[in-house]
């Protein structure tokens, strides 16, 4: 197996995430697209670890860190979305224009 096939698959997943991030209206769906992008990053880390086989397993350890931070991110993100929904009766990002000049 060559390394490039995993990198291209990761790039494709990341690009789908970029598309979803830009095009979605609901904030929960924006968060789903962000999870897709973080997952593509994890795939890259594991693929590079499999190619380099570092003595300290750096790629796998940092993939675990990324998973942890992503879990924290989705917890806080959903709490913020919940708060915005409670205050504005909508979770659509294009209606959140309170701080727009």
């Amino acid at each position, binding site marked *: 197996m060559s390394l*490039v096939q995993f990198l291209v698959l990761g790039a494709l*997943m990341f690009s789908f995430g970029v598309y979803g991030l830009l095009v979605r209206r609901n904030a929960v769906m924006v968060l789903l697209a962000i999870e*897709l992008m973080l997952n593509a990053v994890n795939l890259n880390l594991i693929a590079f670890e499999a190619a380099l086989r570092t003595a300290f397993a750096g790629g796998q350890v940092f993939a675990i860190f990324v998973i942890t931070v992503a879990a924290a991110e989705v917890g806080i993100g959903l709490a913020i979305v919940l*708060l915005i*929904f409670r205050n504005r009766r909508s979770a659509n990002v294009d209606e959140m224009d309170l701080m727009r000049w």
Partner: protein
Amino acid sequence: MGGWFTEASNWWFLIIAAFIVVASFRVVTSGNVVHSALFLVASLAGTAGLFLMLGAQFVAWVLVLVYIGAVVVLFLFGIMITRAPTGPKVEADNPRKGFAATAATVTFAVMTYSSISAFGHTEVSKVGSGTATELIGNQLMGRFVLPFEVVSFVLLAALVGGIVLARQDTSDDIEEGGGQ
């Protein structure tokens, strides 16, 4: 490229990759939020399969436990609580699809070009017989102990922050006369 198709693991890669691409595409195009979350499960499961192929068993099962077991369930709760639009008639996307597709395509093209030009001939080394789990445990408690503790503190802060943000503050409601 001629010998690429003779390797059995590459066929497995193609099957899983096609599965992941279809699932990821449906995550960002499905009009139903619940379907999007469930396609994310499929995409993550395929990624966990690739991790197993690459000899990262521990990370693969952490992905299954944390993402599929916890994060997606959290998403489903979020979808239900915010009453996100789940009907097919609701417009889930904003009208600037062309711009977003262009940005995504350019991102993909740049990353693919740079990956191929930099790592075009790098091979993934063969997976050994043992697992890397023991090594990861030793490294987390040795070389990476400080980042490990910092990340646990981040989780604690996120836990407290999530509770503070999502808590319904009833005393404010009374002061503002019912508020909200």
